[in-house]
Each structure stands twice: as C-alpha cells, then as structure tokens.
C-alpha cells in the first residue's frame, strides 16, 4: 500500500515535471503506404534546467479519476477512419493517433484494445481480416510513436458492430474505423 502510494506520488511528480515542457509532435509520415511505418519520433528532449517546485495543478485530473465505463463512454481516445477496402492510416488518422498517443503517455498505466471495424460493403468473412488489418495498422503507428506494444491489444469485429446502422456513404465512412477501448487503468 505504502509502496503503491509512493509510486503514485513519484509518477505524479514525473508527470508534473514534464508538463511544462513543450513536446514536439512526431512528424506525420510522408508516405501513406500502409506497410511503411512512420519514422520513430525523436526522443523527448532532456530537461534544460533543474526542475523547480511546481504548484499543485489548479484543476483536478477529471480524466484520471473516472471509472473505466465513464472513460469509454466519453473517451479521450478518438477513433480513426479508413477508406473503402483499405487499412492505410491517412494523414488525418495519423494526427488522431498522435493525439491518442499523447493521452496514453499521460496515463501510462492504461491498457487499451483497438477494435477494427468495417462497413457492410465487404463480406462478413473477409471483413474479419480487414478489420484486423485496420486495428493492427493503428497499433503499429502507436508503437512507432513510443507507446509500449504490451499496452495495446487488437481485435477485429469485421462488420458485425456498425457504429451507424445507416446504409449510405455517411454511415459507411463512420463504420470503417479503429475504435479505442480502455480496458484497464
């Protein structure tokens, strides 16, 4: 118990220590090819000065104190979307993943599962594989941003759980997605 508390304090202190430091975003990948992982982000810069005592944060960390269900209901981890029959992570998708990576770095204890989903225009069977590709593509990019591989699981639900039951381009584009679920914190 005491150890856990100490750890929490230490982790909290580290997090606070790094907060003011402007962290460069990893560069967006130049190519869109799915199989070419983007270059690894540069290591975080070392602190330039001795840390000075930081006053307590003015607002409480509302995200960190939420229950898992509440977190997933209003998730700080955004989904990314894919083109038809494609598992390529788009430029926009890379930005989503960079933002998600920033959240995950802030909460290093989180375990997440990336669910790969498809729209109804592929077959049920093939979509299991395509959904898995999408989840893996998102995971690969996250790992390239420095997120530990063992924090991120993947699963494919094919076209079985559409986000939008509609049968038009708008619904389909929402259903071709990689959806993040926080499974432990």
């Amino acid at each position: 118990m005491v150890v856990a508390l100490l750890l929490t304090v230490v982790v909290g202190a580290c997090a606070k220590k790094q907060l003011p430091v402007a962290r460069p975003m990893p560069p967006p990948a130049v190519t869109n090819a799915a199989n070419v992982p983007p270059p690894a982000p540069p290591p975080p810069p070392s602190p330039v000065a001795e840390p000075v005592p930081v006053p307590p944060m003015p607002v409480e960390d509302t995200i960190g104190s939420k229950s898992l269900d509440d977190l997933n209901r209003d998730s700080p981890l955004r989904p990314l979307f894919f083109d038809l029959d494609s598992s390529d992570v788009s430029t926009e998708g890379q930005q989503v993943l960079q933002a998600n990576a920033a959240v995950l770095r802030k909460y290093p204890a989180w375990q997440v599962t990336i669910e790969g989903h498809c729209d109804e225009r592929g077959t049920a069977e093939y979509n299991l594989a395509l959904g898995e590709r999408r989840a893996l593509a998102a995971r690969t990019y996250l790992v390239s941003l420095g997120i530990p591989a063992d924090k991120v699981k993947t699963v494919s639900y094919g076209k079985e759980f559409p986000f939008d039951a509609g049968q038009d381009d708008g619904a389909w584009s929402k259903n071709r997605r990689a959806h993040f679920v926080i499974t432990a914190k």
Partner: protein
Amino acid sequence: MTHSTHSRAADVASGFSRTSRVLLPLLIAASAAVWAQQPAPPPPAQQPSSVELRLTGDPGTPPRMAVPDLLALTPDRETQEAAKIISEVLWDDLNFEREFALIPRDTYKSIPAAGSIDAVPFDRWRELGADGVIIGTAQKTATGIRVELRLYNVRARQSAYGREYTGSAANPRIYAHTMADELHDSQRSLRGVARTKLTFISDRNREAVLATVEKRDVKEVFIADYDGASQRRITINRTMNLTPSWSPDGRSIAYTSYRSGGADILISNIFAGTMESPAKGIGQNYLPVFSPDGTRIAFTSNRDGNNEIYVVNRDGSNISRLTNNPAIDVTPTWSPTGTQIAFTSERRGQPQIFVVNIDGTGLRQITFESYADRPTWSPPPYNEIAFAARTGPGFDIKILGIASGETRQITFGEGSNESPAWAPNGRHLAFMSTRAGRSQVFTVDRDGRNLRQITRDGNNTTPNWSQ
C-alpha cells in the same frame, strides 16, 4: 421393448437411413425419438430385400404424389395433432428435393382416410392423377406414439414401401423427416436432407454484450432443422460468435468466438456439453471448418503476424501453415476428399478465391471477380465451389464448376447475398441475404430455384449445413 432412442446427432448423421432397406410386404419396425440426450446404438441391421418397387410417373415427369392426413387411431389431442403435422411435414420434405410432383393437400381433403390397404380408395386417388399416395396411421402408446406410413402405387394398387416407427411424441416432425429420407433413398436413390440441420448466428435475444459501453447485441450460435423448424440457441457466452461449422458427425460445432476478448476458435460438443479450443488462443483465430473426416480443422490465424491459412488436428496438435504471403489469406474450405483447400486471398489486389494442395503446393487462382469471398466446396457428385461475388452495391451467390471452369449466378441483386453453404447432397445451398430487410438465412436449390426463408427473428448470418 421396441422403444429405442435416437439422439438428434444420430438423426443428423446418415447412419440410420443408410442401413435401412425396403422389406415387402412386411412393415419394418423402426424407431425414432427426438430430443433424447444419449446417443443411441445403431439400429439393428435389416435384411436387404430383393424386392424393389419404384413409383414411376408419366414419361419425362416425376411421379405425382399425394400425402393426406394420417388417420389418428386414438382420440387424444396429441395424436390428432401429430397425425396432421406428420403429413404436412412429409409433403414439404418430399416437395423439397423436387423428385416427386406433390399434389396440393387441399385438393384431396374429401378423400376419406384409410387405416389399411383394403380401405384405400384407389379409384379416387387415380382420378386425382396421383401415381403414389402415402397413407398412414398414428396411435398413442404407453410410452409415446406409433406411426405407420405406407407408400401405395396407385396404378398397381400395391404397397411400394412401408415403415413403422415408435418413439416419443414430443416432436412428430422427425417421423416425417425420417420417412422422407427413406423414400428418397428407396424410390429415387437420393440422399435426402430432411434430417439435416442448419447452424447460424443470431442476435435475436437482444442481450447486451458484456464489457462494452457501446450498445451491442450478443450474437450466439443457433441450430435449426433444415426447414427452419425447432430453432434453438447453443451458446450462452454473452459476446460475439460467428461462422459456425458442423463436424461431419453432427455432434459438434466449431465457431469463431470472442468469449475470451479476442477471436478464437471454439468447438462446442453440443450433446456432451463440453468445449474444446484447438487453436489454443494463440493470436487471433477465425473461420474454422472441419475436414471431411472430422479429424482436422482449417482456419485463419494471425499468430505469425499476418492472416494465413492453417490446418490443425482437432486436439490442437500438428499445426501446419498452408500460406505464406504478406496479403490477407482467409476463409478456408475443404475439398470433399480433404486433399485441397480453397480460400480467399487479396495477394493479387482484390479478394479472389484460390486453391492450394493440403501440403501447400499447387496454388492457383480460380475466380476473377471484382471481389470474391467465402468459397464453399460442394460434396460429390458435383465438383463445384460456391462463393459470394460483388455484383453491384452488394453480393450475389455464384457457383464455379471446377472441371468446366464455368461460373453461374444463382441470386440476382435482391439485397446482398453472402456466406453460401452446401447441403450434404449438393443440391441446395444455405446463405445469408438482406433481401427481406435485415440479415436472414435462406435456402435455395443449386439452380437458383426453390428459395425459402429459414429465419425471421433478429439478424441471422453465416449459416452452415450439417452432413
């Protein structure tokens, strides 16, 4: 005691009908009971008969057949209902294979029922144009019901085939199914499918998936008779299950299950109530199919980093990998002899069907569609592969003759049509269609005729037909 029991598995398996032979003019005492929990010993061997009496119709046309209500010999309501159900179901079963021309039942309501050959009004049946008529009786017994069914050759005024069954009255349909299979066997040398079953996935129970905040309905494994009767849920794991596949003996169903979070292959031994996990949860495992001899399972797995086709012994031993390609390889199906696997691959762009020998050699592409998936290899005597092909906004079922290389289409843009699965005699397919609005299971003959809707409740997908 004449009452022996046959489990559903024995009904599904073909052993019962294959060992029976026509004996004339005696009725053969056979037995059948439904929903028994224990497998039964095989029925005693019957003496083969040298007597063969086949109905014939007019030249070039199938025999015309009538199936009036059975005569209930006891007045209790259960027997009365059974007498009606058996005749209705037998009419449907015989109609299904299109080997007989079934005369509509409402055209002979006025012809009196007969309890014996002396009472059969042959002139009336002849006037109706029937070549054959099936006359039967149902009688309550101490333990259940006794059903006698006899096919009469109307022109010859002779009994052509007769059976007596005793067993439970709980599901009288099984007596009709058994008689239909035996009639198709003895009269048309055809393996009927009246006692086969379908398995499929349904979300009809509207239960919420556990461990998610999204609104998701569970998808569980169901089974049903081939005609959609007696639909029952098999799994209760409150998650998503998909792509069920029967073992050849009809006692087990392998399927993709998300029970443990990720996708893995489970085998439910549906009578023993036990489960197996042959892929052992290594990586994500999908789309299991039993080999024709039931000893092995082909499936898709990403255990080596990318979706490939694997074959493993049912007990999880001796796993081998058939494909090695950075593309997606998915959805295997066995050739009837178990020597080849057809599967879907996008290694040349869009998903197409490929065939490979079981040792991984001899790979070849066999479809050249804009998108093809879910190959399913027909049983003998047909050498065909059915698959779903993108034909527009949705999919249609196509059938490729492997020897001829020719492809024919059997659905035509009514909704999206996917996931074909052959009946064990190769004459019918089950598939999923959205033509009725939601996703439902249908059956259709291999020429595209005789479309029947099997499910109506909830969404029902990925059917598979027992052997």
